[in-house]
């Protein structure tokens, strides 16, 4: 049961959970530390969050940053916003050392939602889904693969996956949608 990931839209759905492929977005890996962080925040128009796992958005809402590590953020943005973000970063070099790398092509995002979406994650995620509060996110593991998980709400998650791993994970998640539904039935 390998879902077709060629176009955005629903992939699997049951009474327990629904799985869909999100519309593509622009993605940026941003790395910096110390004194460079504040200027980057200013340039990007959002306050780069301080605690690993927390998020911040621009006022316009077209860009959102999630802190993944002590010197690492991932930014999701509308495709239109990306050139501006890259340019804003580039303008800060070399005075404010950092690394901004476009990774828009690297990943896709699956959306997991529904009453048992959190439980769906337990098919492959060793950590406790409840340790990620709504509005937060983490890089973690799903079925042996590194993913970035964004918890949008109690019952809604986004999962960023490198392309080549996506069919494998989507297939397990689709299996899980059906299995969870059969379990409640």
């Amino acid at each position, binding site marked *: 049961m*390998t879902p077709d990931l060629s176009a955005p839209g629903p992939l699997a759905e049951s009474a327990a959970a629904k799985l869909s492929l999100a519309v*593509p977005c622009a993605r940026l*890996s941003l*790395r910096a530390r110390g004194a460079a962080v504040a200027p980057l925040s200013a340039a990007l128009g959002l306050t780069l969050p301080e605690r690993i796992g927390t998020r911040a958005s621009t006022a316009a809402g077209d860009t959102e940053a999630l802190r993944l590590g002590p*010197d*690492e953020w991932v930014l999701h943005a509308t495709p239109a916003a990306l050139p501006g973000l890259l340019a804003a970063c580039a303008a800060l*070099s*070399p005075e404010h*050392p*950092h*690394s*901004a*790398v*476009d*990774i*828009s*092509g*690297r*990943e896709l995002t699956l959306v997991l939602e529904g009453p048992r979406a959190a*439980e769906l994650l*337990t*098919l*492959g*995620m*060793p*950590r*406790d889904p*409840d340790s990620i509060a709504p509005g937060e996110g983490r890089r973690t593991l799903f*079925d*042996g*693969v590194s993913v970035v998980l964004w918890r949008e709400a109690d019952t809604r998650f986004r999962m960023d996956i*490198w*392309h*080549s*791993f996506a*069919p*494998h994970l989507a*297939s*397990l998640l689709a*299996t899980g949608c*059906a*299995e969870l*539904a*059969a*379990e409640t*039935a």
Partner: protein
Amino acid sequence: MSRFRVPGRGRVNPDRPVTFRFDGRPVQGCEGDTVASALLANGIHLMGRSFKYHRPRGAVAAGSEEPNALINTRRGPGRAEPNTRATMQEIWPGLEARPQNCWPRLSFDLGAVNDRAYMLFSAGFYYKTFMWPRSFWDKLYEPVIRAAAGLGVSPSEEDPDTYASRYLHTDVLVVGAGPAGLAAARTAAEAGLRVVLVDEHAEAGGTLLSEPQARIAGLPAWDWLTAELAALKALGVRVMTRTTAIGYYHQNMIGLCQRLTDHLAELPADTPRERMWRLRAARVVLAQGALEKPLVFDGNDRPGVMLAGAAQTYLHRFGVRVGDRPVILTSHDSAWHAAFDLQDAGAKVAAIVDTRAAPPAALAGEAQARGIRVLAGFTATATSGRLRVRSVRVHPVSAGTVGAGEEIACDCLLMSGGWTPSLHLFSHTKGSLAWDEDRTTFLPADTPEDCVIAGAGRGLWGIAATLADGAEKGAEVAASLGRGASAPALPVEGDRTGSGTSHTELATDRSPSRARAFVDFQNDVTAKDLRLAVREGMRSIEHVKRYTTNGMATDQGKMSNINGLNIAADALGRAQPKVGLTTFRPPYTPTSFGAFAGYHRGGHFEVTRRTAIDPLAEAAGAVFEPVGQWRRARYFPRPGEDMDTAVARECRATRTAIGMFDASTLGKIEVVGPDAVEFMNRMYTNPWTKLQPGRCRYGLLLGDDGFIRDDGVIGRLAHDRFHVTTTTGGAARVLNMMEDYLQTEWPELDVWLTSTTEQWSTIALNGPRVAELLRPLVEGVTLTEEAFPHMSVAECTVAGMPARLFRVSFTGETGFEVNVPAPMGPALWQRLAEAGAPLGLTPYGTEAMHVMRAEKGYIIVGQDTDGTVTPADAGLTWAVGKAKPDFVGKRGLARPDLTAPGRRQLVGLLTEDGTTLLEEGAQIVLDPAQPVPMKMVGHVTSAYRSEAAGRPIALALVEGGHGRMGETVHIPMPDRTIAATITGCVFHDPENTRLKLAAPGGDA
């Protein structure tokens, strides 16, 4: 109604008869029965045969500790499994249960001839014989031994069922849903904690299911149980039945195997057969209860000889009277109640034989009131009956002397040697045990895990005591998690507490060496086997276990360990705690492989990574090969082509027109930051400082031991930005290694690493007409030799797509690699294919890539190197920046043996007949006439048929190879020896003229 079913008893549903097959015949039971209870209801005790002596056996227990009643269960094609416990398998209409380890049939088994010669098959007999003549072991003895061993028959078909796994996090896990577990779960849940309660049986309740006479908090036990389960549900407790805690792993991780369909007649959709839960609990309460010990005496293994507690369970839980004329043989009070209950259920108890001289008067009084004969201070020395016990021989014992025997007729013999806590899971934690002299058993002591034991598992007895202890432990656990909890005492009426004594073998008047007193039923280990082991110098309990196989049967010693220990300790003349218990190992009960594998089967066994372009290759009929986690197109056969033909065509097209290759799997790392060049200087052997933005260089990566780890072309995009490529298989490893050095050794460097392997689809275009193809498609770079020479990189657009264009070649032809954002890869591939078609563009796979790179002498790390090759060995000294003060591997390279003469060096090899293709891996010698073992001087690392060279070519690592140019070496093959000449590594266009870019409009 079956003959032994007791109306009004049990929790089975007599209105729902269920028919299944056993030993080829239909058997009727009720919904709620196990195979064992249904067979017993029909008076069938003979259920299996033992391992070594093939002795007839019946169920001795009623739970997962059953060693004897093992059956093959099946549900149509592919769904069969050996060694299923008849005591745990629930029946459903159509279930087929077959006996095992017998031929021609269960009731007449020729293998039982072993039983006649039992004296020969004493413990360890096989170590002492079967040695002569030597060749007979392989041909005769071992095959015979093997055929006799084993129990059931392995499945022979693929399993059509699915399996699942989950992670689960909770505050408290309670293992065992008997009174202690129920009370612990209730208390913890009321304190507001997340609680999971698991039980291996189909129903929660544990011992309560076998003790309906009790009243708890004023309610009959079963009503209280119903109410309690409802209360737990209301509190949000997750109660999981048919769920076995199989293993206790580090830091309160417990493996739970939940059986979902084996009890169902119809398999529901989307439902796995079993699910493995990897549960992590802040605290664990082990409330697994206690196991009843058999008594050890001659003939204690006949069908119909059973644990008294099991008989109670069959009566109360399943409504089955295990016999009409039972004899009770016990050293513990608990078995007396079995006698009473069976008598009340219509059996005629022939006698209660208690080994104790003075059992409690109250019990004796009750027996008297029921008219049951009591023999106190007696022993049993033998039983009779071939397929079912017919009588037991009992004797008074006074002052150690066994008096005259009496044969008592019976149709079942219910024994109890007392109870011992179930220590298995606790033992998995590496917890220590403390010897309890009163109970003659080990009790749990300290454990490194956050775990408590409640109830009978720590030696408590009776419903009131275990309920109270469970509640107390629940409160204790809650308190340790910062929650207050109250543990109300529940009044219990009709409770059955008791005590007993422990024995080694029961006293006998027969020669002990003739007694067949079984300790491990399944493995046919007798008490005298244990004593023989000790006599032969096996002093450690582990030696005794391994020498006799006591405790190594599929019940994992649940029935045999403590009796075995008591007997071994007695034989050794040492106290039990000085002898110690063998370690219990996971899983708690045998657990199907499928449950461990979970989802990881077939196509989902491991991830198969595919590039964005992969579907196009598949559509083009490519043949793929696995490379690490990836699958890559190996060649693109046209109808009728084999690999050699296809590869030759792909090479020819590339060398004469254009070849197109999906190189997306190459690892890519973006190295960015002001210190990027310094970092590159430290990591790679090459110097990077002078590499200008827009230029590329071949980079070589060593380990600090000096050996080659990886290589790849590296482009400098900007002063502070490098586009590093790695081998396909090395991508993750190289990035991890770089991060390690950066974070740990050089944290001061302002540089960051980002994996961009999957950011880009990478299409390699090689061939004399490639410029013709690309010039119309590329914007932002002028594709001339001057403006964009070999080893250049630029950011531009290709076919309107944003691209990083590299001028590199791994074939020796004019070459480009176009990187576009991964999702655009397929569009670019198609566009190039269309635009290139008139120019002769041909897709090629990894095999043609390998041929063409070998023709140019380019190495493949991992094929031409193997982790013991230095840059000098590989002829790559030019890539080592000798002037640099340091780089990873520089010091390693200076070690004596890495600079010593005679190292194996990479050279070319041409077979002297000009036609023979060498085999990769073939070994090279200088003197083909020498005898075996030969002195080998190297091996062939790569070998291909080469049209470009006009003959087969090969690369090889040869001792001192660089100094042997032109010499002849020999490759001895099984059928002949091949002579080859050592050459340089470049077989095609040594002057690199073909790398040049044809001028626009010029001839290709």
